[in-house]
């Protein structure tokens, strides 16, 4: 009789243990679950082709336009590597350059009739892109889209273009890229990109200036085409 009671108690304890272990397992799954289930991986495993147009910001003597083509492969949803080739040899005098030349003509100083100046030329860089933030957005409370913020780092070769400058120094140099921007995906196939990239190259901006590492921030507008189709996360 005593043995039978002990068996009953044992059975009850085993039953309760089974209930509690199930409950713990369920809680563990929720805690370990990702913040977003079946997340659209907008970048992971996709190729990105990007034609872009840009303009230098805040340069003293010359404002350059940049025409660029880029390719990146996204190894992860937050990490990509690729190449970009751009040409920034098309430039315009700034109001400062025009004022200097106007002043030179006024005081009849032949050295400043035309300011000998330099600008960016051909740029070919290897690039690494990191996406610290990515997610969804709602436009005007109606239109759903995807967006990310990315940081660009790169290094490569750059040429310098010269205007009104006889016997100018060599034009081949090293370029370093640091920048960032946002992508907006109105559809999963493509994104509209806005970014500001600083292309740092050593050069003399004008003939009389010292050679130094110049910063050339460029505001870029581009459209990226992504292939293949979007995969979904866990």
């Amino acid at each position, binding site marked *: 009789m005593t043995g039978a009671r002990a068996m009953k108690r044992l059975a009850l304890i085993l039953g309760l243990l089974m209930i509690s272990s*199930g409950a713990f*397992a369920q809680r563990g799954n929720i805690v370990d679950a990702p913040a977003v289930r079946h997340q659209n991986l907008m970048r992971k495993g996709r190729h990105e082709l990007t034609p872009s147009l840009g303009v230098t910001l*805040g340069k*003293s003597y010359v404002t350059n336009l940049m025409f660029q083509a880029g390719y990146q492969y996204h190894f*992860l*949803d937050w990490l990509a590597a690729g190449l970009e080739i751009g040409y920034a040899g098309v430039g315009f005098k700034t109001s400062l350059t025009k004022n200097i030349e106007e002043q030179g003509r006024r005081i009849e100083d032949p050295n400043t009739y035309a300011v000998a100046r330099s600008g960016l030329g051909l740029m070919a860089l290897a690039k690494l892109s990191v996406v610290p933030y990515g997610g969804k957005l709602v436009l005007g409370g109606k239109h759903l889209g995807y*967006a990310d913020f990315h940081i660009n780092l790169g290094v490569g070769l750059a040429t310098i273009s010269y205007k009104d400058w006889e016997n100018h120094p060599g034009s081949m140099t090293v370029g370093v890229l640091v920048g960032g921007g946002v992508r907006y995906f109105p559809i999963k196939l493509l994104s509209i990109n806005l970014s500001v990239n600083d292309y740092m190259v050593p050069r003399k901006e004008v003939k009389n200036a010292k050679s130094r590492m110049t910063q050339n921030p460029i505001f870029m507008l581009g459209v990226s085409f992504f292939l293949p189709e979007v995969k979904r996360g866990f």
Partner: protein
Amino acid sequence: MKTWGSGILVVVAFGLLTMPVLAQGTKDGAKEEAVVEVKGESSEKFVRVIQQKPFVKALRLEIEPTFNLPLNENFTRHVGAGVQVRFHITDEWSIGGDYIKYWGWQTDLATEVGESFQVFPEKRLMDFYAGGHISYVPVTGKFLWFGTLGPVINWDFYLIAGGGVNKTLHGNYHGSGNFGAGVRFVLAQWITLNFDVRDYIFKEDYAHKGKIVNNVVFTAGFGLFVPFKHKYKFEK
């Protein structure tokens, strides 16, 4: 024999009871299904089908101490500090005021141009800006840190425009208009991290002639919301 049989029955019964729980926890990596039983009209009091907004700005005051950096300067460089105070009428619309105090100096470029070309353009250091603004939020969103890590970060993108007075150290007060855009990252119910870029436009009276100046300013600041929490109408 009877007691053995009852013991086995108890074990089997508990086993059957626990099976659905275990299956729910393991099936397809834990597919979750919430089943709500609706019994009668009174259930409207208990069933919530609209998810709560994670961050509500409407009818709250935002006080933002700011750091300011003009971006498009050549001959001068400034840094600024100030404050923006705005009242959010709705989650989209807000009105407010702002003040920026500037500290400035001449750059090497000014010296370089003078020495190289014997050209000495006038430089005007800024003193302060004070004015009001209106803001509209057309875009809201949520981000994840590195795709999967950490909590969801809610954010919004806002357009902002306003007017006020701008003063340089050499001049009188000048009427000034400005427009721009910014982004606000929600850190907690009471604090956000804000970045905006605005073009402050004013006319400065140089010795030679008056000139329209575009002062493009980057602003970073923490928005402190009062009251500290939004009270939802219904519980979560």
